[in-house]
């Protein structure tokens, strides 16, 4: 023993733990545990004592794994957790008990289990429903604790996000609290940093889904490029649980009426080709269709735009699915929407619809030609150039089909009882419109056959052929090329010098 130590024998019995603020009640774990177990909430001094005991335990265990295990063995956890449910407990007691319970669960698997076994989840949930301003501190701390727990390995970390989901379920208030703790960011970061192949990824996805169910701000946080890519990966994962969780996320995001979220879905759909089927069956389409009927023109625009992107390169089965949701009558109304930018996007959607598969043209000319009539109406109404261009692309695609299709199109271009708009389009300053119209005409007169010849005659009588002839010096290269093709089509065995 060093000379500076007090000499002589020291008593063998345990001495109080050294502490600068030793309270008169003693600070030994056994004593504190016993005290807490016997105390219920009371008034005045009794309650203050209870608070002191809880606080002392809390301060002993925070950061101290050894002490946590000691208190665990002493059976202190049930008493601490019970303090959360003590009727008439003071706010101070609740705060200390919550912090202590949280600390027991932090970094110690047995501690977390003991806390949950003692019924903490139920008590915490009830506390979180408490409207008291002071209790908001507890709520936020609890959310923080759960977020910390998520980092723990093993069962605890796996289930923590689920506990969070339960806590905040259906509560706007709590989701706001969660916002202040950067919960979305923390959960997303964990998801990004680790494999999707885990139970934890599933529970985190569900937690994210719940977090974003009511708050726009949470949703925009979720839709960062990295996270949205991750959710898309999750949508195609082998494991069904992960796919389900990811869909839940997506469903809550698409619940948003806000334009920004729509814009993001729109962009997702652009990149989506191999995974589209999964997206389609997540409920996004019906949401988009619903939004396409909104009073707000911007919402209509964005939702139609998203549908357009989803339609692009879709399989016939998927197109069928989308059209069943959308319906032809909705499509026709959208073509005749009050806003020209909605009209244009809708026609672009139709363009994608008829692109590639012959049967798809039935959507446009079937059903008594509801859709093609709407298109015709717009083309005849001196609509905005963008609308006319998209309309002509649609007709050009349809005219590439069978005889029935071609006849339907020629009836639009050269109606029996109305003047034709075709010459006007061919004279447009907009080169895209000229090109689209030329394409359409070319498809109507190719391949050569009897019906094609009769269509040429109709076009001729409308002055279209003359106009094409006059376009010999058209500045646009595409126009020149299309015109040359038409010449080749008809010059060979046609004694008519109408093209020369």
């Amino acid at each position, binding site marked *: 023993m060093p000379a500076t*130590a007090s000499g002589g024998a020291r008593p063998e019995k345990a001495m109080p733990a050294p502490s600068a603020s030793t309270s008169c009640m003693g600070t030994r774990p056994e004593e504190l545990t016993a005290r807490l177990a016997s105390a219920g909430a009371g008034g005045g001094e009794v309650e203050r004592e209870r608070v002191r005991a809880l606080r002392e335990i809390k301060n002993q265990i*925070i950061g101290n*794994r050894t002490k946590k295990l000691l208190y665990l063995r002493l059976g202190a956890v049930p008493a601490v957790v019970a303090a959360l449910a003590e009727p008439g407990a003071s706010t101070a007691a609740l705060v200390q008990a919550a912090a202590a319970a949280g600390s027991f669960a932090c970094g110690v698997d047995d501690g977390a289990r003991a806390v949950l076994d003692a019924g903490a989840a139920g008590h915490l949930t009830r506390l979180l429903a408490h409207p008291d301003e002071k209790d908001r501190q507890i709520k936020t701390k609890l959310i923080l604790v759960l977020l910390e727990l998520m980092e723990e390995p093993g069962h605890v970390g796996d289930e923590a996000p689920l506990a969070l989901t339960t806590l905040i379920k259906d509560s706007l208030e709590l989701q706001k609290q969660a916002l202040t703790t950067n919960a979305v960011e923390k959960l997303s970061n964990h998801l990004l940093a680790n494999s999707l192949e885990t139970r934890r990824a599933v529970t985190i996805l569900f937690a994210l889904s719940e977090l974003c169910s009511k708050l726009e701000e949470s949703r925009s946080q979720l839709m960062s490029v990295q996270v949205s890519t991750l959710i898309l990966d999750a949508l195609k994962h082998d494991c069904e649980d992960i796919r389900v969780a990811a869909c839940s996320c997506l469903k809550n995001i698409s619940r948003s009426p806000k334009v920004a979220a729509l814009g993001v879905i729109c962009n997702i759909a652009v990149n989506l080709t191999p995974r589209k089927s999964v997206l389609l069956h997540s409920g996004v389409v019906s949401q988009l269709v619903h939004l396409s009927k909104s009073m707000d023109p911007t919402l209509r625009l964005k939702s139609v735009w998203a549908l357009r992107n989803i339609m692009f390169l879709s399989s016939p089965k998927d197109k069928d699915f989308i059209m069943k949701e959308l319906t032809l009558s909705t499509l026709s109304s959208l073509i005749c929407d009050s806003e020209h930018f909605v009209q244009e996007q809708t026609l672009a959607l139709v363009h994608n619809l008829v692109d590639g598969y012959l049967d798809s043209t039935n959507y446009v000319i079937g059903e008594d030609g509801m859709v093609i009539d709407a298109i015709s109406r717009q083309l005849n109404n001196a609509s905005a150039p963008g609308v006319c261009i998209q309309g002509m692309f649609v007709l050009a695609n349809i005219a590439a089909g069978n005889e029935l299709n071609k006849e339907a199109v020629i009836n639009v271009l050269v109606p029996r009882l109305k003047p034709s708009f075709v010459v006007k389009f061919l004279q447009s300053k907009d080169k895209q419109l000229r090109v689209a119209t030329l394409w359409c005409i070319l498809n109507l007169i190719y391949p050569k056959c009897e019906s094609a010849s009769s269509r040429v005659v109709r076009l001729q009588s409308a002055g279209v052929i003359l106009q094409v002839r006059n376009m010999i010096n058209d500045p646009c290269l595409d126009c020149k090329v299309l015109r040359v093709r038409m010449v080749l089509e008809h010059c060979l065995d046609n004694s008519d010098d109408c093209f020369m």
Partner: protein
Amino acid sequence: MFLSRIVLRDLDSIDSPTSMASSKKMVTRDVWERKLRDVKIRKEDMNRLVMNFLVTEGYVDAADKFRVESGTQPDIDLATITDRMEVKRAVQSGNVQEAIEKINDLNPTILDTNPQLYFHLQQQKLIELIRAGKINEALEFAQEELAPRGEENQAFLEEIEKTVALLVFEDVKNCPYGELLDVSQRLKTASEVNAAILTSQSHEKDPKLPSLLKMLIWTQNQLDEKAAYPRINNFSTAALEDPSI
């Protein structure tokens, strides 16, 4: 510092490949001061640097007065600074238990998620017990609190050994590891606490001014290889000292 960067650029374009590194360009004070005058710095930027320093280091009253005088907005809520400063002050005065309790009131997750900080606080507590001559208590504490830290985390063993070694010597202040008893050790721990609290509040833990000073020193060192110029050697006065040849 901005000026020395400019001079470095000038030198690069003037020096021909044949002149070797041994020839240093000479910059007179006149020329240097003229170039300095030409460098424009915005007052707002200066103010923000000062405010950032005051707020990160925790000088609440100074920050508030500065806010009123200069119109610069603090980048943290000044109210949160008071709590943090109380913790820092407790550590600096050697009242470690008080500091621990205050941190736990502020945010119970900090010490649970910063094992190194928790260890340093407990180490500081032991140091204070030794300083106060309470050897019995110190021994108990070392056994009950510090030894478990070593069991939980082997990285702490070396520090524990150093601290416990203090108990062996009669003249503690002059023994090996006696520097643990310096005030500087308290300040080190206090600074660690301050940083942890700032981080938990999602704020940067270091003020920007020290980084700028480091840049200045580095830049001068770089320039030293190429030129003789009026140098700042004393950073508290920032006086330019004429180049020696």
